[in-house]
């Protein structure tokens, strides 16, 4: 959908198309467009196929959300149960809690995790020593490539009673070192801050790329006008980054609720379900008692709907107040 509109806006002015013809003119326009851009259409076949096969066809599986899904019978033979799976999720005693935790972690992650790579990229951009810059950049990527299991192991070790972080926290709060992961109140912070640490270097790559495309002449002109470093950042660098930031923000909003279960599963324990239990982990545990695909499909669908709403709203806001938006 998005692709077509963009393509349309670029080529609509050319002759041969029926402009303002509405839906009736669509077949004609498409045919014309196809004739003109055969090679381009040909080139995009693989990617279109990829989307159809891996993204659109599996959507048929959403039927599972309304079924008592039975693997042996498949989606055509399983018993239809209407909204049972959804009702079970919404009326469960822990629904409120997992929603709160998911929202809180998602938001905290957005507030702290989203600006971190931008700030890092800006700071790095100011560094003039090339080799220093390279070293910092490379080291900051590293955590991203460490397996989540290892990261979780590190976090566990550091936050245990006697662990490095645990001791630091103890000396700041002037108390004895406890197992931070055993205390419900610390979980959000441990989760989000470790995520920021792991992802900010890698996340900054795209901003670094955007920064390098800003015209040097702008800076030279600004210097002539007497702008200092701070003013240059404010009036040249940030506006230059704005489109990238907007697009990434919109995409991020879509996955706000999709707080992944793997890292939490590795870190949490029954004692801190109060703050650590999110939608995905809750569903995971429900599935351990009885592998219920219908139930997880229902929750997955709920997650996707929320994600889509967030994405559309953010996109709408961005389109209204800035020049950049996804579609």
């Amino acid at each position, binding site marked *: 959908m998005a692709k077509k509109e963009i393509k349309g806006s670029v080529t609509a002015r050319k002759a041969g198309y029926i402009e303002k013809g509405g839906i009736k003119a669509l077949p004609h326009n498409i045919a014309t467009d196809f004739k003109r851009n055969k090679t381009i259409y040909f080139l995009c076949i693989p990617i279109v196929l990829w989307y159809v096969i891996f993204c659109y066809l599996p959507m048929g599986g959403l039927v599972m959300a309304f079924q*008592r899904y*039975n*693997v*042996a*019978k*498949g989606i055509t033979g399983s018993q239809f149960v209407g909204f049972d799976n959804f009702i*079970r999720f919404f009326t*469960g*005693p*822990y629904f409120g809690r997992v929603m709160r935790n998911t929202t809180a972690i998602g938001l905290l992650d957005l507030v702290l995790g989203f600006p971190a790579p931008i700030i890092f990229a800006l700071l790095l951009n100011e560094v003039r020593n090339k080799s220093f810059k390279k070293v910092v950049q490379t080291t900051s990527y590293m955590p991203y490539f460490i397996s989540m299991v290892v990261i979780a192991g590190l976090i*566990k070790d550091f936050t*245990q*009673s*006697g662990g490095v972080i645990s001791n630091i926290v103890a000396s700041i709060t002037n108390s004895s070192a*406890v*197992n931070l*992961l*055993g205390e*419900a109140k610390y979980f959000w912070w441990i989760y989000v801050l470790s995520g920021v640490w792991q992802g900010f270097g890698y996340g900054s790559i795209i901003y670094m790329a955007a920064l390098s495309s800003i015209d040097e002449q702008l800076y030279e002109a600004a210097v002539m006008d007497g702008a200092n470093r701070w003013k240059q950042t404010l009036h040249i660098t940030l506006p230059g980054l704005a489109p990238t930031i907007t697009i990434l923000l919109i995409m991020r909003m879509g996955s706000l609720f999709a707080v992944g279960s793997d890292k939490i599963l590795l870190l949490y*324990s*029954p*004692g*801190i*379900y*109060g703050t650590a*239990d999110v939608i995905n982990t*809750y569903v995971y*545990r*429900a599935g*351990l*008692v*009885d*592998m*219920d*695909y219908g139930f997880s499909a229902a929750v997955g669908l709920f997650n996707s709907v929320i994600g889509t709403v967030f994405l559309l709203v953010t996109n709408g806001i961005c389109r209204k107040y800035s020049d950049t938006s996804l579609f």
Partner: protein
Amino acid sequence: MKKRIVAILLCIALVSSVFIGCSKQSGKDSSTGKDNAGEVAGGNTTSEEWSWPLEEKKELSFWIVWENQYLDNPNELKGVQQIEENTNVHINWNIVSSSEAAEKFSLMIASGDYPDIIRGADEFYTSGLTKMVDDGVSIDLTDYIDKYMPNYSSLRKNNEKLMKDTMSDDGKIVSLYSIASKTGEVKGERVWGGPSIRKDWLDETGLDIPVTIDDWYEALTGIKAKHPECEAPLMLGSAATNYYGAFTSAFGVLPEFYQDNGVVKYGPAEEGYKQWVETFRQWYGEGLIDPNFVSNDASFMTSGEFIGAGKAAAGPNVWGMTADVYRQMGYNNDENYWLSAAPYPVLNEGDDPQAGAPMSELVKETLVVTTACEDVELALRYLDYYYTTESMMLSSLGIEGETYVDNGDGTYSITDALLEKVADGTYPTVSEAVYTHSIGAASFGLYNWEMYDAIYEGDKATDAYDVWENTKYDLVLPPTITMTDEEAREYASLYSNILTLVQENTVNFIMGGTSMDEYDSFVERLHTYGIDRCIELKQAALDRYNARSN
């Protein structure tokens, strides 16, 4: 990390139990299957005379969860090769690793492309094996067993408990079970897991191996006083209990469902559980329990990094994990270091120790034959062969003369040649050396748990058996009780929330985060979350199990 992996592998190898062949009596000439089914099988001409090996090679496909770091395929095991030679049936193994087993299983079922035989389907087909037959995945074996499986059916018929365990509530036979035996004699395994404690430290305090809860308190405080560096005197699972229900059972309850003379009860809703929570709350407050138990999670066995390296004094363990093993793994090189099994704790001296896990069950993993199997007779006859003594030995200790020798008095020993390979470092442990010859822990048919006596001959490992010897299983629910599909669905939707409630609260009561005054409201919530209905469902399943008969 590597040590840890070795430890885990070893543990899996030890515990996930092995099965094999058939009773000594019926095994005189087991290669011909001692065809007592001939009489029963009247109508079928081919079944009257069945003799191994087949004249013409036939093939079967077999889905199995199997891992072996030395070999890629069970067909490379000499024990399996010998079985192929004896039967002339070639098996095409469909191997999956345990980490991806559930996913691969679902894919296989969804694809509709089944192998002939599936091992362990009960674990993954959650709506139950009866439903699996109804869904058209596996076949009802009721009418075939007597006809094609003389060894299996004679084992069943000679043991009433086995008879019950191997049938469904409505009297059908929907799967075959591995049967536990002591070298052929049908018998539940000895208690293979339970509490362990640092004996050398205990000796320093002058105390005996603890028996009662009070003894444990004394022992842990004593050790903590002598060894302040021991940061986690008692290790626990992340839900504060352990797999064996060792400490809760002293208070007459188990951490989850259990039976009290045929009446199903739920531990956390009972008074005994509250007493246990209070005891552990006090212990935790005094630093006797691992401050990081929620993340260390020693539910099944205590990690060598703790119990082996002097960071812990006691914790759950399996019998094979002795002081020698921890030394071998390099956690400890102190000569005095000694780990001993402790009996399951009791409240008062003289009480019967109770285990909370069904370790001594007669039946183990299941085998189902799928609807895709074209030659059901061949599949069942082949599987029946695994209930002979001959095959039992091939799948447990391997090849006579090559991996083990028969001492003539009913005991077996590992050959010197194989022991040398362990000594020169080809294999890190004897059990791993044996598992390069026999299918061992992933086997099926008649399981011979006594194989470990040969593997650990001369080792202190089997001492633990004697310590845990008197443990009873009065509280444990039979693992083969089943619910119907509808019941299972209702149970699952209620129980997943209850489990969350129980684990979270238990941990917080013990760690002191929640006041004990809240306990009554916690129990009340259990009732509002539907524990009574769950108990009802379990009770119905148990009643049906008890009423099973031919």
